[in-house]
């Protein structure tokens, strides 16, 4: 585990040098800041606007950061051939893969922290300090981002960058529409289609589980029970993804 951490920190430092990261972060902060410009609305409406924009931006830009950072985490090492030296050291492939994952989590944590801080600052400035519901929303967004990053990282263990980026974006969109897909499948008569549909929609990560923003923003309270269930779902799914990535990195020839 210690070796994974060493590799993770190295990956984190490497990510800090990628320009894409800063561009995305700055754009996200600008968008969040712009939400304050709607001061001609009533106070309540403006607050809702700030929350809507901020939550959506943190999730969307966070997802972009997760995908872009994870994309090149492994392929970068192969292209630069630093991977050979690394594999000649007394580390296992697992150390390498988990190290990359840890690095991604760290970089996401930093970005998420910065964006959330800015958002919370805005809320405090608007005299509406964040409550536990805001915290729950942010928590779910954060774990969602980790899952997105883990999936892209796992796909990177066996597929090309080009495939990975298309697949990751596709999965991001579809992952948000699972409930709609499920409702459609429920209405179909065809037994086979229904079965396949259900299986497919279990395998595809349901990102909407982590989306409680629409409701929190209009004042609906989300129970701890729901947060707990979703967190367990997240954990199990993460384990599945990491196991798959671990399997492929072991097999991979460089």
């Amino acid at each position, binding site marked *: 585990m210690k070796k994974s951490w060493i590799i993770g920190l190295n990956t984190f430092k490497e990510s800090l040098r990628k320009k894409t990261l800063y561009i995305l972060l700055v754009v996200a902060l600008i968008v969040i800041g712009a939400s304050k410009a709607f001061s001609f609305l009533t106070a309540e409406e403006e607050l809702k606007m700030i929350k809507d924009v901020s939550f*959506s931006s943190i999730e969307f830009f966070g997802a972009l950061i997760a995908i872009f950072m994870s994309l090149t985490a492994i392929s970068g090492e192969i292209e630069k051939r630093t991977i050979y030296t690394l594999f000649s050291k007394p580390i296992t492939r697992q150390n390498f893969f988990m190290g990359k994952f840890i690095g991604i989590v760290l970089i996401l944590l930093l970005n998420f922290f910065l964006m959330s801080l800015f958002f919370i600052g805005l809320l405090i400035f608007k005299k509406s300090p964040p409550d536990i519901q805001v915290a729950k929303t942010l928590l779910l967004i954060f774990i969602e981002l980790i899952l997105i990053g883990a999936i892209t990282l796992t796909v990177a263990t066996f597929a090309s960058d080009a495939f990975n980026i298309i697949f990751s974006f596709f999965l991001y969109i579809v992952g948000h529409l699972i409930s709609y897909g499920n409702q459609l499948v429920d209405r179909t008569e065809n037994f086979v289609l229904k079965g396949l549909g259900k299986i497919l929609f279990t395998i595809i990560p349901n990102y909407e589980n982590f989306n409680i923003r629409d409701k929190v923003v209009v004042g609906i309270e989300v129970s701890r029970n729901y947060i707990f269930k979703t967190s367990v779902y997240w954990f199990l799914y993460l384990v599945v993804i990491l196991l798959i990535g671990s399997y492929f990195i072991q097999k991979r020839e460089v």
Partner: protein
Amino acid sequence: MKKNWVKLFIAIILLFPIGFLQVSIDYSKKVEDLESNILLMPGQIAGSLVLSGFKGLAADLLWLNIENYWHSGQHYKMLPLLDAIAWLQPTYIVVWAVGGWHMAYNIFANVRSGKEKLISQIEKMIEEIENKNNKDLAIKIKNEIDTLIEGISREYPKTEEKIKDYVRIVENCRNRLEGMREYKKLYETLNSFVNIPEEMLFWYNSGVSFLKRGITYNRDRYDLYFELGWTYYHKGRDYPNAVRYLEKAIKFPHPDYVDDVLAHAYEKNGQIDLAIKQWEKLIGTSFETIAKRAIQTLKSGGRFTP
């Protein structure tokens, strides 16, 4: 290395508890009202696909447009936007309440205020008519419609029955107006004038329908039952309906003023005993003084609500 396949095996096995957990989460979503509504209209699915992550944001942007239209007097353009927002975030009470208010009160009043300009134009044109019969006809129509407008905007009850009567009056005026076609300009202006009460009723009805739709998405809160009840009571003077909805409102946690309005509505609806009972509920609240006076007045057979 040999055990590498075990990882895949475990991963597949774990998909089962994940599947069951998802079912449990879906159930929680239903129970806690976290589910996204799906209206299976093709166009709306497309919109939903695009907006699924950003519904709240989209709703806000649409809301900005509504503010714009309101301030520039483009009332009809507000309608599809209100629909859109209500569809995006049906549990956002404010949209329904404000939308309903805009329609039943503001646009309603705005339409009415258009009459002043028309009246002065019409009066000028009537002066120029030489034929006495036609002149009288024009004056009569103008006066009838004017009275109707004022009545609708004030004390005329807007129950379903009464609305039918008003529409009949408007139809009648329109028919008689046909005889004035030769006075082209006057005909056109008077026509617009005759349309006013109809438009006012349209907006009142739209406001009511809008609130009713809102209720279907928010059945378990007092808010929209109250808004609708209030609209029926205050704007519509439709006391049976007012009572109906206010009674529904008090079934859920609600502030005291809801009880207050219901008490008034009972009285106006002739249900004095229920009114008294309702006032009694307000003893011990901030409405106590009013309640006591009301009970006293009602018990002695007087009228409390103006």
